[in-house]
């Protein structure tokens, strides 16, 4: 276990990488013995620096939800990060790649809560009843390290590799559709580039949100009414480039779209 001065220093280094656009060495390389708890403390420090600079937390993201990513990292549980006001873009937004380092795009379902969820003991029924609506969403993941060859403590420390996200304007009541079988279609410049379904996320996005509530509950943290929860990628990560136009459509919910311009920093 790393002492607090060390996790603070590593969190500061990640914050500096985020603000400067210059990558920082991986935690797994600098501190090979670090564990996931250390990584969450580093994440918390990086977040605190953002809040000190005036940002606010508006929700959470769940990562490492797909079998393929879990196999790649050898970690068989999800992780989470915090999403802030500064990361939020509206449906149809154009994102300047110059504000990101090594961005990749994911299509997923986001939940907006209408009541608090406090674990442990949160069930899928609790999640459905606490959900105001679900909406299609792009998460632009990013890494503040040298490259994407990262380990579990790296991605956790780096806010679960969250970059920015685009929230759809289409909304559906989760009681009106089968979130596990609802198909997702990702299109880039008018061509289908990937398809998936909610089942790709821990069997169902609702399961992933319940996992998050229960995991946070053990730490004494609740999910709050009004928070937005990004539930996890339903298809593999996609490369992005200047001029690309993406749509993400989910059965029974609707479509979200976005564009990219410029060049990434790394």
């Amino acid at each position, binding site marked *: 276990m790393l002492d607090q001065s060390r996790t603070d220093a590593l969190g500061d280094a990640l914050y500096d990488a985020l603000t400067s656009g210059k990558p920082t060495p991986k935690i797994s390389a600098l501190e090979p013995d670090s564990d996931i708890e250390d990584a969450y403390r580093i994440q918390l420090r990086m977040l605190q620096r953002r809040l000190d600079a005036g940002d606010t937390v508006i929700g959470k993201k769940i990562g490492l939800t797909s079998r393929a990513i879990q196999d790649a990292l050898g970690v068989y549980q999800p992780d989470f990060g915090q999403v802030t006001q500064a990361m939020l873009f509206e449906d149809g937004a154009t994102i300047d790649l110059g504000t990101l380092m090594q961005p990749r795009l994911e299509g997923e379902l986001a939940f907006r809560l209408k009541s608090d969820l406090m674990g442990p003991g949160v069930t899928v029924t609790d999640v459905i009843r606490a959900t105001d609506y679900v909406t299609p969403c792009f998460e632009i993941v990013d890494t503040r390290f040298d490259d994407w060859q990262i380990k579990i403590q790296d991605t956790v420390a780096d806010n679960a590799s969250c970059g920015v996200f685009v929230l759809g304007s289409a909304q559906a009541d989760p009681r009106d559709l089968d979130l596990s079988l609802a198909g997702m279609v990702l299109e880039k410049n008018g061509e289908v580039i990937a398809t*998936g379904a909610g089942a790709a996320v821990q069997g169902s996005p609702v399961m992933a949100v319940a996992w998050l509530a229960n995991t946070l509950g053990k730490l004494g943290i609740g999910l709050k009414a009004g928070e937005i929860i990004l539930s996890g990628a339903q298809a593999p990560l996609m490369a992005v480039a200047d001029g690309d136009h993406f749509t993400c459509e989910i*059965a029974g919910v609707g479509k979200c779209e976005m564009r990219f311009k410029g060049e990434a920093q790394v």
Partner: protein
Amino acid sequence: MSFDTPKTLSDIAIERLAERVETAQRYATPIHKLTEDYPDLTVAEGYRVQTALRRSLEGRGQQVIGWKAGLTSKPKMAQMGVSTPAIGFLTDAMERPANSAISVSDLIHPRVEAEIAFVTKVELSGKVSAADVMAATDYVQPALEVIDSRFSGFKFDLESVIADNSSSARFVPGGRMVRPDALDLRTVGVVMEHNGQIAQIGAGAEVLGHPAEAIAMLVGVLDDIGETLPAGSFVMAGAITAAIPVKAGDTITARFYEMGSITVTLTD
């Protein structure tokens, strides 16, 4: 695709190749791909072999009840260097009921795919659009296809696979029938479970952007080989996920958004 290339293989040679494929199918014994003996075999000749096979099976009392499109995903097409699907015919003898046991002892190396099937209500012929297909569709429903290449090690080229009826072996209609305009087929999610574990996930748009696009292209290929698609045909649009290799004792369940599910158990 143009099929008016000159005939290089005699009708007798075509018949012999069809017999070779039919024997491999009937006795579940693998053969080498046809291009090993006929390296210049063309796609048009592949379809001539397939047609000879169809005539032979009809002569034995099988009835052609529909067609299937294969190679309908963009990655598979790129891999095979084609721009249209490969098609194959379906007969009543290939049909198996949903939620039942299917023998694999008479198959070589079976694989299972989840698809959306179209049942037509008017004849489709010539070059048609996806909209024409939708207008000609009575209903759509889930289907499983058991494919089985008759070639050793599933190693084949486009010409050989077409001669082998595009690997058609068994098909299983099931789930819930839906009017074609009642659901956006692009976003129909499909989850395939292999022995209770999620094995494959996809959505309808995986098939050429929309499954009806594959049916339209299939009708175009039928036109190229001098056929039409009669009313009442059962037509499978192509795999929504990668094929799952199966063996006796396995269970496959495919669940479709708003269209129910199909389970099959494989037995000796």
